């Protein structure tokens, strides 16, 4: 029940907002979201499993939905989920407060949807039942669709449809994959269950490698769209650029994490054999390992998106593409299959949520003042807006990965993890290695280049401001940031600095669950390496090691 309040409270709040007059909407929303944040803080304080990787705060008597199939609405968190829950509950009041001046029409609906999406996001992270997870995962689409479609920019109609269709298609396929796992479980145990823990254990131990590969294909098409990885990333720049500021912040900070969280929570623990299953494409006869393919796609995302950022004039699109690039690192860290990489990756999820969220806030603040995001029209803003310029430089540096700020530790760990992910690493062998790390590092350099170039253009140099005619129904904003806007950014900045200087508590918290996921990998990876080094015996080894025999 403790955790369920996190779900129920925002929904109650949303209804309260719809029922109350429009002028109170934003205050009710702020009040409730702050309350939720404080509540989640107390939950975090009382949480007992920060370092042992266990799940806590589970509901004792979860609501039974389809009893015949064992579908329940059960909840529970481990340290990683709780951190992500904290991230979303922290950002929500900031998002709501940050949109006080930007949102002037259909106010009630706006704040109602904001609280609805909060419920869905928290639901994804606390769900311990597959169907419950899926319901929340899908439900994030609806509020985001409306946030983009109603309060978005000029191109919003196209943006929201593209966003919706990409994600919906992906998650329908993922659903089929998840149902397949549950069905296999029901065959072997005689009873249906959608309990995530049971299904994960079952899938990783009982399914054959080829079955796991199929499940992997289904799941990755759902989660890769959300991350997004290279070929299916095209919805993201459009959605980000058209969404209202708070929408972009939520999209970048939390919703993209649903994809990497899916990789972390489902793909890695569920289908270890599938990730290392040798796939031969029919007709062309190319063979590859899914794990390698994902890593390559992640590196393509890193470099390709960074190159796009380089030639971007629109600041918001630049930050959006930088998310694609950054999440590439995150995925790369996950598939490195060692504690360094995975810890780095989970840290990266949090850090990216903070720094990119802040960057979107900053871009939104500029847009509110000048009604443009074109870098050619803006220059030297440090002279007119010193406070804004300070935050801009701060968060860009955090995003680039300056040591001492939060971005560094995650990115560094991901790269180190990738670098050492070789057969020689006896404790946690991987199949990536220095070459992958080298290419990813190129992306790191590119990141520094495009972000610092953007800063050089927009923040420094000769002052150039577009003239703005203020429309009557917007209250004119102060030239530099208002107290409210500073208050929105300051907590994020403090956290960035804190995590940058003191990452130990976080890495400690991430350690245990990561180790648990990784425990099953070394034998599988070693087997793979053995088969690679002795190609003659490959067939033999493949046959003898496949659990459960051929199909």
């Amino acid at each position, binding site marked *: 029940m403790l955790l369920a309040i996190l779900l129920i409270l925002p929904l109650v709040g949303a209804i309260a907002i719809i029922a109350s007059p429009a002028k109170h909407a934003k205050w009710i929303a702020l009040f409730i979201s702050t309350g939720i944040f404080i509540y989640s803080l107390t939950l975090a304080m009382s949480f007992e499993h920060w370092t042992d990787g266990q799940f806590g705060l589970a509901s004792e008597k979860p609501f*039974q*939905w*389809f*009893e*015949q*199939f064992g579908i329940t609405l059960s909840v529970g968190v481990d340290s990683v989920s709780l951190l992500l829950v904290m991230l979303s509950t922290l950002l929500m009041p900031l998002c709501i407060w940050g949109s006080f001046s930007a949102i002037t029409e259909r106010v009630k609906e706006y704040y109602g949807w904001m609280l609805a999406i909060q419920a869905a996001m928290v639901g994804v992270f606390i769900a311990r039942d597959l*169907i419950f997870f*899926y*319901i929340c995962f*899908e*439900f994030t*689409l*609806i509020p985001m669709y*409306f946030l983009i*479609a*109603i309060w978005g920019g000029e191109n919003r*109609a196209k943006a*929201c*449809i593209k966003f*919706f*269709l990409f994600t*919906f*298609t992906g998650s*329908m*396929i993922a*659903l*089929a994959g998840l*149902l*397949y796992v*549950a*069905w296999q479980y*029901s065959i072997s145990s005689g009873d*249906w269950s959608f309990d995530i823990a049971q299904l994960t254990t079952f899938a990783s131990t009982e399914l054959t490698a080829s079955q796991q590969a199929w499940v992997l294909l289904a799941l990755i098409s759902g989660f890769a769209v959300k991350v997004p990885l290279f070929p299916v990333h095209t919805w993201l720049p459009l959605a980000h650029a058209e969404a209202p500021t708070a929408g972009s912040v939520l999209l970048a900070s939390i919703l993209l994490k649903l994809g990497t969280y899916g990789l972390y929570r489902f793909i890695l623990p569920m289908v270890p054999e599938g990730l290392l299953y040798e796939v031969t494409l029919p007709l062309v006869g190319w063979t590859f390992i899914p794990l390698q393919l994902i890593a390559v796609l992640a590196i393509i995302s890193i470099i390709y998106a960074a190159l796009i950022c380089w030639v971007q004039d629109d600041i918001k699109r630049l930050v959006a593409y930088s998310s694609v690039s950054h999440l590439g690192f995150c995925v790369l860290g996950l598939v490195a299959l060692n504690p360094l990489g995975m810890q780095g990756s989970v840290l990266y999820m949090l850090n990216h949520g903070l720094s990119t969220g802040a960057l979107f806030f900053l871009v939104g603040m500029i847009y509110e003042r000048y009604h443009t995001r074109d870098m050619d029209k803006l220059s030297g803003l440090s002279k007119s807006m010193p406070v804004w310029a300070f935050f801009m430089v701060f968060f860009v540096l955090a995003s680039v990965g300056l040591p001492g700020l939060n971005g560094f530790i995650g990115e560094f760990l991901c790269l180190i993890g990738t670098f050492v992910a070789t057969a020689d690493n006896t404790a946690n062998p991987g199949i990536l290695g220095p070459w992958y790390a080298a290419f990813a590092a190129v992306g790191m350099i590119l990141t520094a280049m495009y972000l610092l170039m953007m800063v050089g253009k927009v923040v420094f140099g000769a002052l150039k401001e577009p003239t703005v005619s203020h429309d009557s129904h917007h209250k004119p904003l102060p030239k530099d940031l208002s107290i409210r806007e500073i208050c929105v950014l300051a907590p994020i900045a403090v956290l960035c600095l804190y995590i940058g200087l003191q990452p130990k508590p976080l890495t400690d918290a991430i350690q245990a669950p990561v180790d648990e996921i990784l425990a099953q990998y070394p034998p599988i990876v070693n087997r793979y390496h053995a088969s690679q080094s002795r190609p003659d015996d490959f067939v033999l080894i493949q046959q003898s090691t496949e659990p459960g025999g051929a199909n």
Partner: protein
Amino acid sequence: MADKLWFLLPEIWLFVGVVVLSIIGLSKSKSLRDSLPFVTCFFLIVAFIMTPFVYSADRVADAPLLMPMLGKYVKMIVCAVGTMLALLSVGLLDRPLEAAMAEGRTRFDAIRVNRGEYFAFFLLSLIGVMLVCNANDLIWLFLALELASLPTYIMVAISRPSSKAQEAAVKYFFLGAMSSAMFLYGFALLYGSTGTIVITELRDAFTDQTLSEGGLSRLAIVGMILSIIGLCFKIVAVPMHFYAADVYEGAASPVTAFLGFVPKTAGAVALILLLSTVGWSNHHGFNVDGLPREILTTLWMIAVLTMTLGNVGALLQRSAKRMLAYSSIAHSGYLIIGLIAGPPFGLNAVLFYLLAYGLMNTAAFAVLAAFERRGQEIESLDDLAGLRRRYPVMAVVMAIAAGSLMGMPPLLGFAAKLYLFIAGMNAGHVALIVIAALNSAISAFYYLKLVALPLLAQSTPQSETVIPRPVVWPRVAAIITAAAIVILPIFANQLIKASNVANSIEQSALLSATDDLSLVEKVEDGTRH
């Protein structure tokens, strides 16, 4: 005989309603004539309340039916959705005539008023559906199916004063007659193959055939496939789906909503009864592994083609009614997954899906039925543009209905679809589920239009001319159904339990099939060869 009559009490009660309605329809008093839809609702609600008492445990125990409790569930959902459909039809009929009478341009003429007939036929068609689930022989089944369909032909024709409606009715009638001929022919072949028309005996005869010949006789297979294809007309599935777009477009929206639910329910229930005579392992009590292969393949192909054609067809439409017609086809495709999967989950899924589809379909058409332009009903999607600005509640109802049809959690459509998918998966039809999932993704594309146009688009000069119908009841029905779509998922488990009881087969038959172990071995031998 008396046993059987007892279960027909709701039908008999509704037949009283038919008589009452046709008499009231001839009344000179306008207020009496205006009360027709509400009288219809009254009869339906009483039938709804009556049904659970009729199906009391002691009565059901010795009922001579294949699925004795099926009637309870089907009759209750038919009465519930039927009440909503009756509300949609308020103020639909005789509008020019009533207006002329109100202005004193013409006098009351009993020959020219259609309202009494309309609602009488309305109830007759519902009686037909209810009778289908009581069927225990093929003749009864045929007559019940015809009773469900025949009134709808007339309802389409008189639903609006336009040649389009008459054209639709003629198309509908001829194709309907052809389909009836088809499944009647199929029934005849089934009789030829087994020598009986009683459904429980048919099942035993097919069991014997399977035992002695290792499979159904060819005659039986041809008969069964013909019956299935004929029934595809009722549930709007490939290859008998051609009429849907034209007929749905031609009929007035309340009638279209009726067509989307009532014949589909009749067809689906008839298919459940027919298929349970030939297949599904646990209904037989011995291992025939679902349906016979030929019938399984036929249904599999029908399912895939139906959902794909329906969804792709819907993508291309500019008319809201045609789009919903194709969506109705697509949903039949999903429905067949449940029939393939078989009991208990598959049939639960079918029965649950019928309720869910009935509600969301009614909600969507209720919004269309709530508006008009210069006395003509709205058809084009563009007419819905910017509905939110003037009629926010109706725009929200349309969005809820479309979201539910799409299968968006946490709405009723999602619960129904999820259950259906799990049931299909449980029966091992992975490919079918993947195809259905992809189809759901395709369907999002056009259902999004129904969300986006009313809620998000700017109104156009064309859509500005749309005004609400002078009666409030279609809007009331829209709100009630939308509320049900939002609230019922919470009770999905209870609904599934009810449908589970509904498709459980009579105990004695199950026992008689299982106690003979030698039979079971023989069958396993037979199926192996």
